[in-house]
């Protein structure tokens, strides 16, 4: 297995800069997810790891040695493409055996390993089918087997679940995680789906417009987002964001003022997650505008002096109906402040409801 390091990696096509100043270390055996909206350079990054694209600048190291120019075929990585990219004229068995052909593995052993890999992803009964006769989920499993059969030092997954239906996606999520644990292969998953990233990966790299916004565990990104972008990209339903003005230890938001804990001045943005809001005596007076049942939880849209807020309460039955008046409160640690100009988080600054 390998420890992967990217130093100031940059990729551009003509004038288009797809990836810029990428610094990232992936530890041996780690499961890292690259998360970001479509077009932010996730696949480009992955393809550079695979050796399909060559970085325009910067250094890519495997176990401390620069591999920028090493060809894809020499890198010993396994990759699953978004479209699976199964060879259409080869049956499943030959598809899985394909990578072994170029490693000088004897035919008999290659066949044995192909069956083994197929068993690992539960497609052993499909070995003699052609790719066109497989469903999306089956194709995806075959692609996984093909990526794993050569015992890669690095496994790359480019939006592997995006073409599957919801239930299949759920089971494949667990399946891929199981495989990664089982093989211990260093894995990089690319996805635009935050749930996929948070449920599967040890660490998440959040990207935006070709740059890294934040690297951290799912909890880091959720609780301590470095930027407005990360805060709004992670979490469903999305975080409440309210513009305000900090002055003299107080924060003016909407039509009211909050008490500022920590040093801040000027225009800021206050973020409060819907799950952080709970009913509480002496809190913000709130009028319920709308109620959305979401299975085991319920989402409320509230009109408060701060502005409109979304609040998520557990419980399938709503304690309030539209038009009800009540009060909501939150813990100061659950409030996040961002500078409006830099869009970065102001560390150790929180707000409290005035007593």
């Amino acid at each position, binding site marked *: 297995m390998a420890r992967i390091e990217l130093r100031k990696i940059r990729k551009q096509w003509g004038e288009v800069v797809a990836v810029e100043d990428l610094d990232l270390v992936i530890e041996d055996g780690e499961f890292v997810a690259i998360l970001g909206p479509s077009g932010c350079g996730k696949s480009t990054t992955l*393809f550079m790891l*695979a*050796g*399909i694209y060559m970085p325009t600048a910067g250094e890519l190291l495997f176990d401390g040695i620069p591999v920028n120019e090493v*060809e*894809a*075929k*020499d*890198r010993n*990585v*396994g*990759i699953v*493409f*978004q*479209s699976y*990219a199964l*060879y*259409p*004229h080869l049956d499943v068995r030959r598809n899985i055996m*394909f*990578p072994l*052909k*170029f*490693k000088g593995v004897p035919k008999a052993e290659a066949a044995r390993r192909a069956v083994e890999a197929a068993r690992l992803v539960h497609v052993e009964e499909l070995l003699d089918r052609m790719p066109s006769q497989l469903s999306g989920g089956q194709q995806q499993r075959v692609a996984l087997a*093909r990526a794993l059969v*050569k015992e890669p030092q690095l496994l790359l997954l480019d939006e592997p679940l995006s073409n599957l239906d919801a239930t299949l996606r759920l089971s494949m999520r667990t399946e891929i995680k199981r495989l990664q644990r089982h093989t211990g292969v260093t894995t990089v998953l690319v996805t635009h789906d935050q749930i996929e990233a948070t449920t599967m990966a040890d660490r998440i790299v959040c990207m935006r417009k070709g740059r890294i916004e934040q690297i951290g565990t799912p909890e880091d990104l959720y609780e301590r987002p470095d930027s407005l972008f990360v805060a709004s990209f992670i979490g469903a339903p999305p975080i409440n964001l309210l513009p305000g003005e900090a002055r003299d230890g107080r924060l003016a938001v909407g039509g009211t003022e909050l008490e500022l804990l920590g040093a801040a001045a000027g225009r800021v943005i206050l973020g409060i997650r819907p799950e952080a809001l709970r009913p509480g005596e002496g809190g913000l007076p709130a009028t319920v505008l709308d109620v959305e049942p979401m299975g085991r939880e319920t989402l409320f849209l509230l009109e408060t002096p701060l502005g409109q807020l979304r609040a998520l309460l557990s419980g399938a039955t709503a304690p309030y109906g539209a038009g009800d008046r009540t009060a909501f409160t939150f813990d100061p640690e659950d409030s996040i402040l961002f500078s409006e100009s830099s869009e970065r988080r102001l560390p150790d600054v929180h707000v409290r409801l005035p007593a």
Partner: protein
Amino acid sequence: MAGYGATSRQRQRINAVLFLGPACVLLFFFFIAPVIVDIFVAFTDMGRTLRITELTTANFERMFTRDRRLAQTLVVTFMYVLATLAVFNVTFGLLLALVTTAVPERVGGFFRSVWLLPRMSPSVIYALLWAWAIDPNERGLLNQILINTVGIGPIDLMNDHPLLLIVVANGFIGASMGMIIFTSAIRAIPEHLFHAARVDGAGGLAIVRHITLPAIRWPLSFITVYQTLSLLVSFEYIWLITDGGPFYDTTVYALYVYKRAFESGQYAYGAALALMLVLLGIGLALLMWRFFDMKRLLQTPRIEVH
């Protein structure tokens, strides 16, 4: 409602005549009618006077039993078609497609347009270029190059290797067709397949062998059949460059047909000879059906209003 239906049907008929009429008339007079005329004339004795005095099967008797030149022509045709097809139209076309898609797109595009140039130039000019290039005296382009670089004396391609000459001259034009078709077929291969193969350890040649070639099987068969047919029936460049000579050395079947009719004035015999080509043409054209996407072609239109 009945009145409405009637006008609709009427309009439908008028539309058919309006839109399809011109095409039908032209296609009938210059495609269908000639086939019928050819079949008819093949069974007559039409000669230089263009008059028909009797119906006869003499042309076919002559063709199958007495025409000794015809046998030689067939041998030349066979060698010419096989060599041009194998070396240029398929192999070299494929090679050009592979190479021009493997270099940066701008470079590849440039060389593809260079190779299309002969096809786009007037045929008389193309023949003229060849005449200048292979001029047997020292001034010919080829001879200048040979004398100055290799050091071998002036050669006379036209007289010494006429078959080679027509194969190369036609091949330079024929290769571009394969090149274009194969290029588009290669482009149509999903890029991820190439990426996957590279990651799986395949080198350049292995990618060609395992990804590209399997994906262009159909275009390959199409080009083979299509070009066989065009080589069999076209004689324009041979006519212009060697005029079938020296002697009958480069007289292919199609040129022989033309000369029999328009130079010897044996129109009926020419028509009989041409009939073989017509039948062959129809046969191969039918065979080529297999390469078209029939379902898409015949998709029913969705607007029923006329």
